[in-house]
């Protein structure tokens, strides 16, 4: 899978938040097979060492990081956070979140497009967290995004794919764009479904971190993503309403 100019083999991206412990996070990352984890920036206490301890642990995992702008509600906040993240994490990648509604964490499409344009022009490789809206997606591509990350459902809900029609339409409308379903995935079957629809990858966090066995769930998601991708490539049959016998009718005995 191509993410800007980087080739990765795993189609599962994993968040690093909400795990019971750093050791469980590390175990989950290993079992997921992911090559990319998301990270954030937060305030450090004077004399504190939380940031350095976390960063050292992530570096030991040997994976790439995708910093986010989580919690940003304005273009300015998001752009400033992106610049700070680029310096700290040493990457041009940014998972761009410009949130428009605090209850649903629905992206603000207007702010998102504006911030994406500013950052793309400044050399960032932007991974915008967006909805499945076609027009917004097109505008994000117009301003320089080469990857889009539509939500499956609101962050942390685990509801799966709320608008399968919209996601399918997005996939069909932008066949050449790397599309990653980000947020709302609760079960491996949700991830498999998205991959069967032709999405390129899945980004999730809570479903693994909040599972009773995060490492086990990470493994389950890895298998689901792989299965869904294989199914997509194998060209699934079209569903139909009426039954159609799979066993040949011709040659059936007459037994009265």
């Amino acid at each position, binding site marked *: 899978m191509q993410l800007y100019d980087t080739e990765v083999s795993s189609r599962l991206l994993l968040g690093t938040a909400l795990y019971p412990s750093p050791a469980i996070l590390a175990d989950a990352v290993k079992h997921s097979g992911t090559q990319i984890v998301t990270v954030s*920036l*937060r*305030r450090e206490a004077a004399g504190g060492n939380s940031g350095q301890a976390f960063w050292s642990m992530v570096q030991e995992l040997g994976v790439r990081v995708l910093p986010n702008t989580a919690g940003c509600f304005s273009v300015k906040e998001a752009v400033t956070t992106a610049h700070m993240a680029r310096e700290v994490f040493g990457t041009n990648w940014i998972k761009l979140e410009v949130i428009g509604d605090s209850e649903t964490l629905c992206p603000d499409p207007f702010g998102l497009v504006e911030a994406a344009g500013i950052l793309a022009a400044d050399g960032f490789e932007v991974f915008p967290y967006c909805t499945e809206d076609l027009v917004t997606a097109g505008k994000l591509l117009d301003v320089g995004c080469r990857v889009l990350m539509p939500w499956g459902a609101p962050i942390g809900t685990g509801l799966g794919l709320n608008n399968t029609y919209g996601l399918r339409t997005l996939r069909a409308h932008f066949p050449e764009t790397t599309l990653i379903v980000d947020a709302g995935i609760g079960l491996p079957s949700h991830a498999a479904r998205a991959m069967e629809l032709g999405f390129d990858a899945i980004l999730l966090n809570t479903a693994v971190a909040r599972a009773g066995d995060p490492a086990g769930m990470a493994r389950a998601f890895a298998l689901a993503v792989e299965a869904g991708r294989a199914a997509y490539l194998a060209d699934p049959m079209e569903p139909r309403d009426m039954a159609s016998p799979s066993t040949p009718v011709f040659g059936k005995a007459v037994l009265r």
Partner: protein
Amino acid sequence: MKITVNGQVREVQATCLTAVLDELGFASQHSATALNGEFVPRNARAGTSLACGDELEVLTPRQGG
């Protein structure tokens, strides 16, 4: 002078951002800074002066989704 650091009012003696970070115990941190909402790159810290009432943010890596 009094400045606000990560949302808390602090009294500092230094005025240069590099020195302020050192004074507050942030010097060894792998951090990024913003002054009054504007990003201050690492290489600009030495040339950045703080004034009374300024708001400084010092951010470091954290878990994120």
